[in-house]
């Protein structure tokens, strides 16, 4: 399908929507601001809905569906690593203890983005077919 008028129109609606929504947020205390926010959110939803409806017309892409559970698990492990770092700072006042916690937490997070997520995203990669 490639770039086309419908895409262009939806990008325009998206831009108008996000502008209206932000204007609404900026003036949220006023009635006009609240109206702008609602209009903006509606336009954003409309643009995304329309994008979704034309997505299938794009044609076949060089990407197969990837396991969502594995991806979510990878993201969760990533966040856990970060929480280990933060917890370490809170639990121990010593620099050495905080350093160990930081390195451990970082290792967990790196394992997620280097190992778990690439494995998940490449599970059904087109080059494996």
């Amino acid at each position: 399908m490639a770039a086309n008028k419908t895409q262009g129109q939806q990008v325009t609606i998206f831009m108008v929507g996000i502008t209206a929504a932000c204007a609404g947020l900026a003036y949220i205390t006023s009635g006009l601001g609240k109206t702008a926010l609602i209009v903006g959110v509606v336009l954003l939803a409309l643009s995304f809905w329309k994008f979704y409806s034309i997505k299938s017309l794009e044609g076949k892409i060089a990407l197969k569906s990837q396991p969502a559970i594995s991806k979510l698990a990878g993201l969760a492990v990533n966040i856990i690593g970060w929480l280990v770092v933060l917890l370490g700072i809170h639990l121990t006042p010593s620099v050495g203890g905080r350093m160990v916690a930081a390195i451990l937490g970082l290792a967990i997070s790196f394992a997620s983005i280097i190992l778990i997520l690439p494995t998940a995203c490449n599970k059904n990669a087109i080059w494996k077919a």
Partner: protein
Amino acid sequence: MKFTRHIVSMCALAACLAFGATAYAAPSEATTELQQGVAKAPAVADLQKGDPGGTLTGTINDVPVSDAKSGLSLTDVANQVGQNKIGINFTWTLICGFLVMFMQAGFAMVESGLCRVKNSNHTYMMNFMVYACGLFAYWLIGFAIQMGGAAGNGNLGGLQPLVGEHTLSLFGRTWGLFGQNGMFLTGHNYDVGVMVIFLFQMVFMDTALTIVTGACAERWKFATFFVSSVLMGAFTYPLFGNWAWGGGWLAQLGTNVGLGKGYCDFAGSGVVHSVGGLSALACALIIGPRIGKFNRDGSSNPIIGHDVSAVMIGCFILAFGWFGFNPGSTLGASAAGCLRIGSVAVNTMLAGCTGTFGAILYMWALKGKPDASMSGNGLLAGLVAITAPSGFVNSVGSAIIGFVAGILVCLSVAFVENYMKVDDPVGAISVHGANGIWGVISVGLFADGKSNYGGSWNGVTGSVTGLFYGDASQLVAQLVGVATLVAVIFTITFVINWILDILLGQRVSIASEVEGLDIPEMGQLGYPEFVFKPEPEVLIAANQAAVA
């Protein structure tokens, strides 16, 4: 009675004389000196004769007088000194911002040069439009999120309208989360200082956004790139920017939990380059590799770029723009340690130089050829790595940081491609992600404690000092920053782009990708009068297999 009236009259006269004498007190020494100076200043008749040597222009007569009746005062002079300081700092910051803006051209040339000719228009257009997308999103809401609570910068006049940081109370401390002042730059934010900091921070933000286009080149749907860039400029980048530079919790690690001077990132190895590089990794994982990049056994095929000259010239443009990136991050050239701008500029140059050496010597000694594109990436890696520590380290530290970056980028490119099986046409993940992280960590190692930016940093008295100069806690603060980048920023970008993939689709069709994105996505070839050389056979075979 007469005598009493006489006494009262004498007292009243004495009081009037005393009051008058007070009102007409003799001028102070300073005032006298100022008045003498005004008298000696070149007269209009002298100036009308011309001033080829510049010795008559710019004198005491150019200091604005607030009260013409009483003439020039010490207050007038002090006010002008303050104006001069702010004026110098405004000018410096703005000109540096203009240099950083020009880096967009460098990125465009590097990225397009490293891609195939059939995608050149599309790649250039992504780099062109990302400037507008990011700027607009930042004006809408991004600036407010990042700098909405950043009041207190003395270099730019205080930025007092920017008071509005949302905070969280946790473990008995207050932690900044995001700002809220500055949307659309209206109301109180229609302010000369706010305008300066907006421009400067915006061009940094656009640098981060443009990094992602490199990793996703040759298969990213233009409409999705558009939406993704707007969202990144509006939310993802500003969030981390606030945490590091806008009065947020990362900067408060020093004051709140005693970790060095908090997370320190002088010009953005973390805020700009790591955010960009890790976002690039997230997007590249979702989009998948180009057709023909990997074989069935997992081995990779080199996909050669179409224009080495564009790459090399682009690298020089980036190196030139980096003189605005790092030295400009003092946000001034007057007071509060700003005279360190020369040191920062030299550190930047040195790291770029040794980064080039690290890469070219690695490639030449181990692979046999002084590879041009890797040499360019080595220069960029050195510049990325020095970005965070540039204001805190000495020249020897800079040279080491740059050299390590040059080698690291070569190792990282191979690792990302051969082990992680992530296709990154321009090496953005390695140049900006890996070396951005190295830059953040190197602050915690090499900061020498000799810098002095107004006697404190992030509200903690003293100078930023790393492990090698006696403060291990600074390294811990940097590691917390790295963990936040890897976990939080990567995850936010991954989730946003995963949703966009579901709703819009990130990737173009196989037919578009095989044909080249220029015609299907942009409607025109980048080089319409050129006759293209056929692609290598391995890529032709992969294209045919994909279409089938």
